[in-house]
């Protein structure tokens, strides 16, 4: 496929890795924010073809992983209402709530439907006027415009039976929170290319200024990520800190203005809880007052008591790049994608799942070198 295959070219990847080695004189700790990027790194063994001095730590950019436990519990409780159809992205079904998950709720008779796009939630609401359709609208900035469209269309067309259970997180406030923690080791960031496709990258300039840390907007293919690493290393070795854009084929400085407008029309910025990490000020989105009639949190009166995460699960540390999944005592033993203890083992973007699929056996071969 055009604009895909060429960025998986092993020859170019190897050359870039050598170029990184030639430019590296000391140890650097870099973080890729997005779980999709983590997946590519593990799948192609990019960490293994880079010089030993470059340590890649994995960031919190897995929307499924950071959706709060309470939201999952609410979704399950709503799904079990006889007059509710709960519509969700497929990745959410096996995410553990306090006592159950949506997959189990479905098996128990709840009407849970998997949608690929928010527009399907709108269709389901139109086709089922006697049911209350709740769309579990989760995601980062990338997904916010599409999720916003579901509410926007419902309002425009006077659909009274569609509401959104929203859990939306924002990347720049999360990077700020990570950089402000005393334990932080990260010296350079690969910013998420699809978040920036929507939002542009002006928001990252403040972070570079305040923390003197280079940030490179990166794509999702092996060549993209290696080039982003090279750009970061060159800046770090020269003592520079700037925002650069590796993913020029999709990202512009101002981003997708039209998509941002829809997000601003439907949502407003709010404090947001991140599963495993806790509350981060102004790091999320909620439906604005003009869309209160479409807010499942306001329509349904839900008072739920959430249990704590299993004590064994170190996902809080994994999501902040402080520990690797393989440091977890439950990894691949009591915690597997079939029986996950924590959310990062569920999603294909979760670091634990990526390690499980590609790095269960020590000394795995470098996949890109074939």
């Amino acid at each position: 496929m055009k604009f895909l295959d060429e960025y998986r070219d092993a020859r170019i990847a190897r050359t870039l890795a050598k170029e990184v080695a030639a430019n590296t004189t000391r140890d650097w700790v870099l973080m890729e924010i997005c779980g999709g990027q983590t997946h590519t790194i593990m799948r192609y063994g990019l960490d293994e073809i880079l010089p030993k001095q470059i340590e890649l730590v994995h960031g919190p950019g897995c929307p499924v992983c950071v959706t709060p436990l309470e939201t999952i519990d609410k979704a399950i409780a709503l799904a079990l209402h006889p007059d509710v159809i709960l519509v969700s992205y497929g990745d959410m079904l096996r995410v553990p709530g306090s006592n159950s998950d949506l997959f189990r709720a479905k098996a128990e008779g709840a009407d849970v439907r998997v949608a690929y796009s928010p527009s399907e939630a709108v269709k389901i609401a139109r086709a089922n006027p006697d049911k209350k359709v709740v769309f579990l609208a989760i995601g980062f900035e990338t997904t916010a415009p599409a999720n916003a469209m579901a509410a926007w269309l419902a309002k425009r067309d006077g659909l009274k039976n569609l509401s959104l259970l929203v859990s939306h997180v924002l990347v720049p406030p999360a990077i700020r929170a990570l950089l402000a923690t005393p334990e932080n080791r990260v010296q350079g960031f690969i910013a998420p290319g699809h978040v920036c496709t929507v939002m542009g990258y002006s928001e990252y300039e403040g972070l570079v200024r305040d923390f003197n840390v280079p940030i490179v907007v990166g794509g999702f293919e092996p060549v993209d990520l290696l080039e982003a690493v090279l750009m970061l290393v060159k800046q770090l070795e020269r003592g520079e800190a700037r925002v650069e854009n590796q993913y020029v084929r999709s990202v512009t400085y101002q981003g997708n203005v039209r998509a941002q407008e829809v997000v601003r029309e439907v949502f407003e910025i709010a404090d947001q809880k991140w599963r495993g990490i806790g509350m981060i000020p102004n790091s999320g989105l909620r439906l604005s007052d003009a869309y209160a009639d479409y807010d499942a949190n306001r329509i349904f009166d839900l008072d739920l008591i959430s249990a704590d995460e299993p004590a064994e699960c170190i996902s809080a540390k994994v999501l902040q790049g402080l520990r690797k999944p393989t440091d977890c005592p439950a990894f691949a033993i009591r915690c597997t994608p079939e029986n996950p203890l924590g959310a990062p083992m569920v999603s294909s973007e979760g670091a634990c799942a990526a390690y499980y699929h590609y790095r269960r056996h020590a000394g795995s071969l470098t996949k890109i070198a074939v």
Partner: protein
Amino acid sequence: MCLAIPGKIVSVEEANGLRSARIQFGGIVRQASLDFVPEAQVGDYVMVHVGYAISRVDAAEAERTYQLLEEMGALEEELPESSD
């Protein structure tokens, strides 16, 4: 979840005030909304995420970056294998 895939617009249609397209991804064709990329036309490549095109792929930029990368790769072939 933040996955977005490049696909080629094969046809465009408008209904109910919304613009959508049939988009080809390798051998598969899928419908996606063009609401966020009003400038996109038949033949353009767009990045599609959960049924919505979120950008028009800048083919000229992609070409230029790729050529630079290609040259790096080509250069490498002319050099002896380094011992790593």
